């Protein structure tokens, strides 16, 4: 049985270590904050200028001056600090954030990541994604293992090389999908499968993965 979105998030949460400063993207990454292990204290960074991001406000307590990078209303914590966008991305680019968890359209076996544009479609912009993947110490991608096309067919997202425009070159350290977990060696050592979702076979994951990988279960 492949993992659900919640199970992917729970698996990603195991990468959190006590004292980490973490940036979570939109979608499955946001769910990771629900699975922070007991005894582990992490501070969430929001790249629009905040450390120590709290949960959504109670109804009626929304503050237009207090939003996250997804433009959602949020709250502050006793640990919170605010700063400018320049200071925020100085923090990101300077390698002070321990972990970034984000979604992807494609990941290549060398760690290339594509998640910001599809040629021919309306381009919305890269926002802070290129800065995050270039600057954060460890980049974890969480995504569905394959893309479902309109005609019902499936396309691999873990590729030998991305064909979409890149968000970052050689930036991904780990990929967690509904089928399993891969690591990518930042020194060119390639991709390794380190975990399978319960009930998923090596044959199945291999058949749905274009990228070359070592098996290190």
């Amino acid at each position, binding site marked *: 049985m492949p993992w659900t979105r919640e199970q992917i998030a729970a698996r990603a949460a195991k990468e959190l270590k006590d004292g980490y400063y973490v940036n979570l993207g939109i979608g499955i990454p946001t769910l990771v904050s629900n699975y922070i292990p007991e005894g582990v204290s992490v501070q969430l960074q929001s790249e*629009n200028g905040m450390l120590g991001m709290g949960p959504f406000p109670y109804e009626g307590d929304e503050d237009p*001056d207090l939003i996250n990078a997804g*433009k959602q209303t949020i709250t502050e914590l006793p640990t919170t600090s*605010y*700063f400018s966008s320049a200071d925020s991305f100085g923090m990101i680019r300077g390698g002070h954030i321990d972990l970034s968890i984000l979604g992807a359209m494609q990941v290549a076996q060398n760690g290339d990541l594509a998640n910001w544009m599809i040629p021919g479609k309306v381009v919305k912009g890269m926002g802070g994604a290129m800065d995050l993947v*270039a600057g954060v110490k460890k980049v974890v991608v969480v995504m569905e293992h394959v893309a479902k096309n309109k005609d019902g067919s499936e396309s691999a997202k873990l590729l030998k090389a991305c064909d979409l425009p890149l968000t*970052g*070159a050689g930036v991904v350290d780990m990929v967690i999908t509904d089928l399993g977990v891969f690591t990518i060696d930042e020194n060119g050592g390639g991709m390794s499968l380190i975990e399978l979702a319960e009930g998923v076979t090596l044959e199945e994951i291999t058949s749905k993965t274009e990228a070359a990988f070592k098996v290190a279960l």
Partner: protein
Amino acid sequence: MSKKVFPDAKAALAGAIKDGMTLMAGGFGLCGIPDILIEAVRESGAKDLTFISNNAGIDGAGLGILLETRQIKKMISSYVGENKLFAQQFLAGELELEFTPQGTLAERIRAGGAGIPAFFTKTGVGTLVAEGKEERVFDGERYIMERGLFADISLIHAWKGDTEGNLVYRKTARNFNPMMASASRLTIAQVEHLVPAGEIDPDHMHTPGIFVKRIVHVTNAAKRIEQRTTRKRAA
């Protein structure tokens, strides 16, 4: 009253804004945007404007209202996905667009204000963003060169300001405002609270008054919420 304090947004822009100018506008999404000053830009009728702003507003709010009047010729932004009118005008070839990664945009503005004409960053290396830019290796890592940005006018929103032009921002409404305040020939700030010089603790000021040439007290900033997300109170 200080010579920096203007009676309203229209007066603060008078004689300053001209066709073809480059402006910066603070804010992230609709948070911390200088909405009253943007309305005054609309009323000024100035056209062929280039705007440096992280986002382009939404339909009917923020810079979106200047897209409606077709006063904007070009945007330098990191994300414009909330605005249908933007997409229409862009696809029709009526609008130029320069995408810059958000952190690179923030740093380019900070550099422009601080007299740094260019700097190196690892953001965008190996991507479309690097095309046409100088690439160089420092200590074994690849970087690209990015240029500072400096504008004719910056439009800023602050929570509190004093008559000397010192500004304090509130929570995540700070975002791009402090760097933009430093990176123009003429910085105009709208403030929700205007106080006499000496009232704000000088250790708490985010933008020193030297950067702010004109200041307007606004009582009607819209402060709209884009994504109202909440949780239920326990019964």
